[in-house]
């Protein structure tokens, strides 16, 4: 059906285990969707060899994920596919909401200037996966196996025993750690008799991908009760290749098979476009949605990530976006555990932190869904009253909920944080996901987030990098020699030669000082996933070490 995209077909290679012998791998990942791929790449980049099993030989079929948020893009940057996604995708920040035939509200996802990445890009999920597969195949320590379907898992003991079916028959492999990224209908979850609880929304949505030439701006447009689709909602997104994605709310009574027929879909689209514009239908499907999660994401040696662990309705674009953050949270912890530098209880904090994030995602997606599809006459009256007031009154605009789009969680309650002992203003408190800032090194303009991540970093704000006392420099460098190294990076309002062996970033726009409430001496300890672990008004190696021990479960 698709005319703009050709699905790649990846080659199945008979795995060596078919010849006999059981090999134990440090990490096996099931599922090469966006989340399993992200996990495989991140672990491989950090030096951990991974086996990645997928039951298929191509990318995600049809129209699924569209919107990838700033935070996910920052993770994709670190796994080497941020540029590919952003240059292929459509970047946007503004969303407009219409009630009947009037615009009542708009939002800007990135009200602050000076961030490397936009609030959101729109990109068909198959591209995201294709870029991920290309990247994974560049890495010699990713063993990516297509047409390898996991059919049973036994993880009672100190490792997981995994049975895999291939076109050439079954084989068994073992893994010290098994990462389960096999999607919303996770068969491994079922094999292990684990529950996932939540609720289904009693509504159906028609999803159509349409190819057309249109000069619609790169914005998200959402209609409540529009004249062309009365009583329901409609959502429009522009994706790559002039493909537009349109979501029509249908109501619970709709017959999915009937609705999918082109003779029923095309008039809906024509009514919406309202002119004789030519378009081609690329894809149509009908979905119902649910919000649910597992109780815990860690079960001994088995770690659940992405849709296998939690599912949300799509109105916040929080599905793949949150799954990619799951693996970003998990991979550095798993690497430390594999290297014997952290106790395996550190992996419980993966579950704690990402369960917290999943609850936030479920809460926000549920609220959006409830606003978009009111469940009772009274809810509908309130909803329409909000929309009626929104045109004129700011307070009502703030209540309009056509989707609270994916943002990272502030892990302020995490046991890995070191609480503040001094006063700070702003939002970069322990547990916060880092704000970006433009910085300059020597003469090159760069971004703060490109300097941190994948390892622990201490950012130290100084008056002049060239004037840092050599004894202090030695202390900074000492931290890089610890079992879990911490790289000190100097940030300064002043350009100046960095002490040998250290990076010095010039905060030339003053955004770092502003966003981090930095004063000379201020130090931040940053986790490998770019969350703040602790901060102080004066650098003290002992405190940094203590915070590091805490952040790695070694305290």
């Amino acid at each position, binding site marked *: 059906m698709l005319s703009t995209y050709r699905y790649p077909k990846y080659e199945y290679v008979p795995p060596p285990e078919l010849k006999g012998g059981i090999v134990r791998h440090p990490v096996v990942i099931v599922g090469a969707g966006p989340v399993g791929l992200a996990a495989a790449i991140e672990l491989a980049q950090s030096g951990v060899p991974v086996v990645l099993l997928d039951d298929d030989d191509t990318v995600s079929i049809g129209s699924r994920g569209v919107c990838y948020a700033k935070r996910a893009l920052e993770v994709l940057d670190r796994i080497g596919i941020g540029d590919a996604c952003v240059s292929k995708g459509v970047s946007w920040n503004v969303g407009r909401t219409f009630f009947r035939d009037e615009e009542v509200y708009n939002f800007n996802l990135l009200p602050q200037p000076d961030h490397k990445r936009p609030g959101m890009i729109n990109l068909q999920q198959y591209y995201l996966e294709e870029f991920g597969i290309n990247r994974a195949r560049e890495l010699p320590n990713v063993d990516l196996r297509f047409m390898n379907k996991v059919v049973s898992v036994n993880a009672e003991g100190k490792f997981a025993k995994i049975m895999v079916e291939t076109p050439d028959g079954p084989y068994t492999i073992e893994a010290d750690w098994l990462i389960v990224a096999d999607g919303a209908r996770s068969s491994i979850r079922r094999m292990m008799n684990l529950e996932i609880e939540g609720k289904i929304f009693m509504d159906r949505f028609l999803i159509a991908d349409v190819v057309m030439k249109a000069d619609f701006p790169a914005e998200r447009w959402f209609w409540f009760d529009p004249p062309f689709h009365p009583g329901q909602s409609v959502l429009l997104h522009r994706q790559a290749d002039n493909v537009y994605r349109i979501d029509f709310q249908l109501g619970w009574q709709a017959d999915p098979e009937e609705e999918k027929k082109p003779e029923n879909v095309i008039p809906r689209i024509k009514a919406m476009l309202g002119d004789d514009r030519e378009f081609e239908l690329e894809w149509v499907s009908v979905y119902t949605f649910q919000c649910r999660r597992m109780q815990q994401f860690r079960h001994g040696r088995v770690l659940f990530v992405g849709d296998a662990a939690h599912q949300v309705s799509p109105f916040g674009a929080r599905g793949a976006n949150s799954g990619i953050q799951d693996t970003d949270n998990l991979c550095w912890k798993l690497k430390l555990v594999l290297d014997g530098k952290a106790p395996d209880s550190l992996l419980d904090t993966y579950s704690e932190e990402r369960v917290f994030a999943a609850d936030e995602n479920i809460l*926000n997606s549920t*609220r959006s869904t*409830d*606003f978009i599809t009111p469940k*009772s*006459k*009274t*809810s509908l009256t*309130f909803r329409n009253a*909000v929309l*009626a*007031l929104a045109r004129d*009154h*700011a*307070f009502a605009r*703030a*209540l309009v*909920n056509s989707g*609270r789009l994916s*943002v990272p969680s*502030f892990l*302020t309650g995490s046991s890995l944080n070191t609480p503040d002992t001094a006063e700070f203003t702003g*939002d970069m408190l322990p547990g916060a996901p880092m704000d970006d800032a433009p910085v300059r090194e020597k003469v090159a303009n760069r971004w703060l987030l490109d300097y941190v991540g994948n390892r622990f970093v201490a950012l130290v704000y100084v008056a002049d990098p060239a004037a840092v006392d050599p004894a202090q420099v030695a202390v900074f460098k000492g931290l890089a020699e610890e079992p879990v190294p911490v790289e000190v990076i100097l940030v300064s309002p002043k350009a100046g030669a960095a002490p040998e062996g250290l990076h010095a970033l010039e905060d030339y726009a003053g955004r770092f000082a502003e966003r981090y409430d930095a004063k000379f001496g201020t130090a931040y300890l940053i986790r490998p996933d770019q969350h703040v672990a602790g901060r102080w008004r004066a650098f003290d190696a002992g405190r940094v070490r203590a915070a590091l021990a805490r952040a790695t479960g070694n305290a």
Partner: protein
Amino acid sequence: MPLNLKPNFAEPGKRYFRAYTPGDDFYEALIETHRDLSDEQSAMVNAKLVLLLANHIGDMSVLREAMKLAREGV
């Protein structure tokens, strides 16, 4: 004080990282108040809610302005 039409929801002691959160907290609680009620029961709850809040506000000029705005366009 004139009728406040700016976003004004907050829970004392609670820190918000996203501007929409306090309003969404309120809206959820409002819808929850009506859960499992018939339309008639909901109308009664709404009437009582208006009366309770009106008494809390007290200031007749604010109430008159709100009543006027609420009626507009209906």
